[in-house]
């Protein structure tokens, strides 16, 4: 296929956005993630309020739920990719948009368009809640630090959603994709954190932490937010390229 025109890009991106926003699961996942994140923020804030005044960091407590929050974005990415295989929609998609690599790229771009604001709002809501509850007791912070942390959190959640969508496109079925990704992020990775300590920080789940967590002075060999972003982007790109190669080659 020749290079797609800007008009074609606009049309296909619009169609992929339409698909995502008319899927009830998209909204249920985002709203559910928002509510659960606020509940977690409330819980972490309550624990934080028990601590000594002037020692608690609003950012650390506000973003403490990120480890759980990423589950919502893993699910969102998988649903976006695997929904094509419900009701035979993939046939309609590929007879309407038969340029497979281009179509999958536009789907991922549409997912990013939805994920970026959603991730920012959800991550910021947790920090805002913590700020409101702890502004009198916690240590102060620079506005720039907060913006950097929220931008990092947004980037991390967006890349996580894209990576899981690429995995969903590879596996094509929702349940196996959910089991593998949630199993890795929430069971395998925490259980194996003591193995390969030198390499573990480069894995996609752990490297993303460096995108939004302020570096701890106790930790050696930490990555900067920029390095964390670059490595997670590389992971995501590798998964996307593999997904596109398989998507182009195999029968629908």
């Amino acid at each position, binding site marked *: 296929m020749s290079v797609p025109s800007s008009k074609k890009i606009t*049309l296909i991106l619009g*169609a992929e956005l339409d698909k995502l926003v008319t899927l009830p699961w998209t909204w249920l996942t985002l709203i559910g993630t928002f509510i659960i994140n606020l509940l977690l923020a409330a819980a972490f804030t309550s624990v934080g309020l028990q601590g000594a005044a002037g020692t608690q960091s609003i950012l650390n407590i506000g973003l403490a739920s990120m480890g759980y929050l990423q589950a919502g974005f893993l699910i969102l990415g998988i649903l976006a990719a695997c929904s094509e295989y419900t009701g*035979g929609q993939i046939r*309609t998609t590929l*007879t309407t948009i038969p340029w497979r690599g281009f179509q999958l790229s536009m789907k991922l771009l549409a997912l990013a368009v939805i994920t970026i604001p959603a991730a920012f709002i959800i991550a910021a809501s947790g920090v805002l809640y913590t700020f409101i509850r702890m502004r009198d007791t916690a240590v102060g912070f620079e506005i720039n630090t907060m913006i950097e942390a929220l931008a990092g959190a947004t980037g991390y959640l967006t890349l996580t959603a894209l990576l899981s969508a690429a995995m969903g496109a590879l596996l094509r079925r929702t349940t196996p994709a959910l089991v593998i990704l949630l199993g890795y992020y929430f069971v395998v990775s925490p259980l194996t954190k003591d193995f390969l300590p030198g390499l573990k920080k480069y894995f996609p789940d752990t490297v993303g932490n460096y995108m939004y967590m302020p570096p701890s002075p106790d930790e050696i060999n930490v990555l900067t937010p920029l390095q964390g972003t670059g490595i997670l982007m590389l992971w995501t790109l590798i998964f996307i390229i593999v997904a596109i190669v398989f998507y182009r080659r195999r029968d629908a």
Partner: protein
Amino acid sequence: MLEINNLVKYRGTQEILSGISFKARPGRVTGFLGPNGAGKSSTLRILLGLDRATSGSALVNGMPFAELHNPLVTIGAALDGSGAHRRRTGRAHLRWMARAAGLSSSRVEEVLEIVGLTKAADKRVGNYSLGMGKRLGMAAALLGDPQILVLDEPVNGLDPEGIRFIRTFLRERAESGNTVLLSSHLIGELAETVDDVVIIKHGKIVADGTLEEVIGNHSNLEEAFFARTSAHAGDAV
């Protein structure tokens, strides 16, 4: 014009299609008939770019499906089922398709009206009956008002009214110069609709010609079909 040339398809070690060739011409309804598992759907899937051929070609107006500039306005396809996500509404399904092809929302309303789904357009596809799902698939095929229609088992599961609608509709499309290729295993339902007949059995074409040629000395298409597809059937026409 649709052209299938020496199409071969393997799944694993099993040969699904064994070098089949035929054409579907403008102004004619071509019936692609065969028992279940004969290779009809595999052929249509390759024609529509969904599956890869092991060798051979399937061309739409002389080019592979993926090279069409805007497929929806060239060829409309309805394969089994609705082809829509069960949790999306019928209208939303057609709207994303229309947007991808650069078509207006008013065209969505037109095709909903043509297939009689306007009142059910805001229901989720998962709540549709089999017949309504078929109608949605037909609406999707007609969305771009294409010159070519490819329909897989279009009357399967439809009530008599639906079958009559499909018959009349396809005849009208062909008479206005369009190409119609439809596959079916329900021979009796299609005898009154098709101009040309291609019969496939075990991945091989066993008959290809006009309706009259394929019927030959048999009393009707159904007899001719069974004569060609029964265990001891003879060679191709």
